[in-house]
């Protein structure tokens, strides 16, 4: 039985636990991969080109998200500016929106208004602007959280020595490591998403895998390609992870609570406001493209469209919420286990990050189909669990575990070794320590993990399509099943309802997080 002190000391249990969790989360995918592992992983040239294209896109998304999100998020942690709360919520909305909707929005906007000109969006650029929205959200929020950890006295010291510029430089330095990591994960996330590539005629690895799944029905080829994609992503990220593992770990996961004291400083606040306005405009444009049909629709059609949208939303609300909450809870729990096992070891934290890269690079269909096969092979009495709504939550939780893992690694590193050691000296049981001290201290990180994973899970279509119990789709899936031939006003109304629900959820979570941080 583990004691408080064991949580602070090296032990075989750490590697065993990380290995067990890694095996658990990888098993559904490995069930599929084992069919495809015989054969040439690189395959023909066309696949190699698609892989190269995807990696280039991932790098572009990571780079663009980092360059824009790093200064914005860091500045947002320091300065009060007009409509700060609203702008931050709007910046985070793309996390809830499937990239396909953003791609369609850009396409529709270009079609209706001629802006941007059609040719500008073809290929790489169209994919980049579709993906960068959610990458930017992830990176900005990470920079915000990291820079918020700078204690007040450090801020004052920086101001005294070099004014606002020195303070901003300090904030940028503090948030560099975690933000770079978030940007890397944002780039990796694009690898398994075929949608923008399909819309903007950009050949991608994810598109090639989709063809293998959906056009050729060749699961062996698809699994081989998925394995190659994941290994390529891991190989390219590993040097970065290894080279900065110690530094990343120490900086990323430094011990400090969130500092929410903000100042209004004229030029800095104004610049930050302008920056956020530019970013949210970038995000709002495709949203406007999606809702264009509403502006042209006659009022009777409009009313009917919203009535249909609300009906669909209310039919799917409980299940959507259930899937999201289950995914968030499972992810947060597993991430907590990983964080506890990794502890303060840079090597083990690096291993968790490597696992995260691998999981994110795998197309969502792979583990989902693995779970579907597993459920089919299981006896009927297991159906309420293996074929129930719970399994959808499980699959979604496993899919987005990397996001929770990053947050919980940071949260765990914010605990002090002394807490554990004093508890050991006083003979406090692990249960009492966890209940009274550890979990309350980790609560903000846990809540953020549940929220972020829940939001990402709510926008997932592939996993839900492949696993949801008949008759229990999510709202996001419903949008995609009607959008082919439903009246455009209905689809637009559904997007508006979805966006409003997402915004309300983000606002509620932000409020709760603020309340938690104050206590």
């Amino acid at each position, binding site marked *: 039985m583990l004691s408080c002190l064991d949580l602070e000391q090296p032990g075989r249990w750490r590697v065993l636990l990380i290995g067990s969790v890694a095996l658990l989360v990888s098993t559904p995918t490995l069930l599929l991969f084992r069919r495809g592992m015989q054969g040439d992983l690189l395959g023909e040239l066309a696949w190699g080109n698609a892989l190269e294209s995807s990696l280039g896109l991932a790098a572009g998304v990571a780079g663009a998200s980092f360059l824009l999100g790093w200064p914005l998020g860091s500045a947002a942690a320091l300065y009060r500016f007009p409509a700060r709360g609203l702008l931050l919520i709007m910046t985070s909305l793309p996390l809830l929106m499937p990239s396909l909707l953003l791609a369609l929005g850009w396409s529709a906007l270009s079609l209706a208004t001629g802006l941007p000109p059609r040719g500008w969006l073809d290929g790489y650029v169209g994919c980049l602007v579709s993906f960068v929205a959610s990458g930017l959200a992830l990176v900005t929020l990470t920079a915000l959280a990291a820079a918020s950890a700078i204690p007040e006295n450090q801020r004052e010291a920086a101001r005294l020595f070099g004014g606002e510029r020195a303070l901003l430089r300090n904030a940028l330095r503090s948030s560099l490591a975690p933000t770079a990591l978030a940007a890397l994960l944002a780039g990796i996330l694009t690898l398994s998403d075929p949608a923008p590539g399909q819309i903007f005629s950009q050949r991608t690895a994810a598109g090639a895998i989709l063809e293998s799944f959906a056009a050729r*029905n060749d*699961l062996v080829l698809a699994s081989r390609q998925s394995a190659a994609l994941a290994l390529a992503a891991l190989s390219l990220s590993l040097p970065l992870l290894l080279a900065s593992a110690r530094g990343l770990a120490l900086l990323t996961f430094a011990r400090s609570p969130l500092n929410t004291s903000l100042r209004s400083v004229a030029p800095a606040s104004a610049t930050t406001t302008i920056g956020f306005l530019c970013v949210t405009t970038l995000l709002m444009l495709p949203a406007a493209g999606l809702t264009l049909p509403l502006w042209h629709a006659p009022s009777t059609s409009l009313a009917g469209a919203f009535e249909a949208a609300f009906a669909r939303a209310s039919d799917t609300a409980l299940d959507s919420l259930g899937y999201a909450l289950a995914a968030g809870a499972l992810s947060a729990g597993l991430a907590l286990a990983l964080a506890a096992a990794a502890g303060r070891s840079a090597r083990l934290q690096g291993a968790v990050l490597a696992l995260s890269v691998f999981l994110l690079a795998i197309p969502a269909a792979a583990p989902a189909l693995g779970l579907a096969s597993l459920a089919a092979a299981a006896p009927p009495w297991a159906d309420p669990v293996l074929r129930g709504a719970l399994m959808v939550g499980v699959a979604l939780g496993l899919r987005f575990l990397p996001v929770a893992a990053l947050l919980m690694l940071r949260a765990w590193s914010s605990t002090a070794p002394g807490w554990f050691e004093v508890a050991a000296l006083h003979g406090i049981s692990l249960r009492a320590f966890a209940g009274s001290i550890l979990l309350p201290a980790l609560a903000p990180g846990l809540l953020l993990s549940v929220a972020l994973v829940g939001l990402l899970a709510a926008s997932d279509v592939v996993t839900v399509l492949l696993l949801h119990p008949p008759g229990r789709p999510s709202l996001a899936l419903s949008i995609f099943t009607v959008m082919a031939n439903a009246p455009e006003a209905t689809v637009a109304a559904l997007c508006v309802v979805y966006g409003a629900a997402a915004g309300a959820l983000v606002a509620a979570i932000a409020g709760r997080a603020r309340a938690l941080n104050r206590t």
Partner: protein
Amino acid sequence: MSPAPGPPRLRVVCAAAWLSALLVCTKSGERVVVYTSVDDIFARPIAERYEKATGVSVLLVPDTEETKSTGLLNRLIAEQARPQADVFWSGDPMRVAVLARKGITQTYRSPEAKGLPSAYSDPDAHWTGFSARARVLVYHRERVATPPTSVLDLLDPRFRGQACLANPLFGTTSMHAAALFVALGDERARAFFEGFLQNGGRMLSSNGEVRRRVAAGDCAVGITDTDDANVARLEGRPLEVVYPDRDGIGTLLIPNAVALIAGAPHPEQGKRFIDFLLSPEVEAELARSEAAQMPLHPGVAVPNGVPTAQSLSSMRVDYPALAAKLDELSTGYLANWAERAAQAGK
């Protein structure tokens, strides 16, 4: 102890209990589970009508547009050992043919199939065809003075850079591509696809996208399905429809196809639902719906603007042979063509 940050224990326990109940509870009562690749907007009213008439719950599992996800077909394949679905209702016969080849369907000769032409069904009774769509040419009425009459007209210089079609690796476009290879022969079909690219033709992600772009005037002409074209018509878009090649190879008709799943959990309910789908009443409803599908039962009334299958000069198609041809093309010529088309489109 002082209150720690976080919800009180009771609220957490209640929330966990609610969540568990939500996630583990399943619906009870008589039911039939229908996986369908037919657009949800068309399939759902039919399912609701069946529920009302029989009191049996129809748990509909619709698919997304083919390019947006891996699709239900893969779910059916993954569940093969112990299926959840009773019935697969497909918008075209190709997907069902794949399932039949993999042993996922079982034979069923519905009594309602008696009135349906056998040419649209599987000779071994793994699936039955009904209510067809057609592959049509659509054009923007203000941009095209002389309408096209054949798919080969897309190679005409007057449509240079103005023609579009959906990715031929997916959905009904893939079936149409295979049909062209069978009808025209390999050489002429390749000439068509190569000529399309050389004439600046654009490959789009889906039939819906073809409809949107032609309706917006971004493309002058395109190939899509009749249900897509009808949706644009109902929205008042300036889009016209041509049933191509009346005097040539004919218009490709794409019937819906329904199959009973092998090992279905509710096989009798599945059979009743199939019987219902194949009835003239459902064909009439699908004809009246926005799908504007052509009944295959002779004598079923159709609204204005919806032709009957018998009135068209339809392409002669051997659907099982078409499925085999599609397999060959998907891993060969069409895959290569799609890659080049994507490059050319940038």
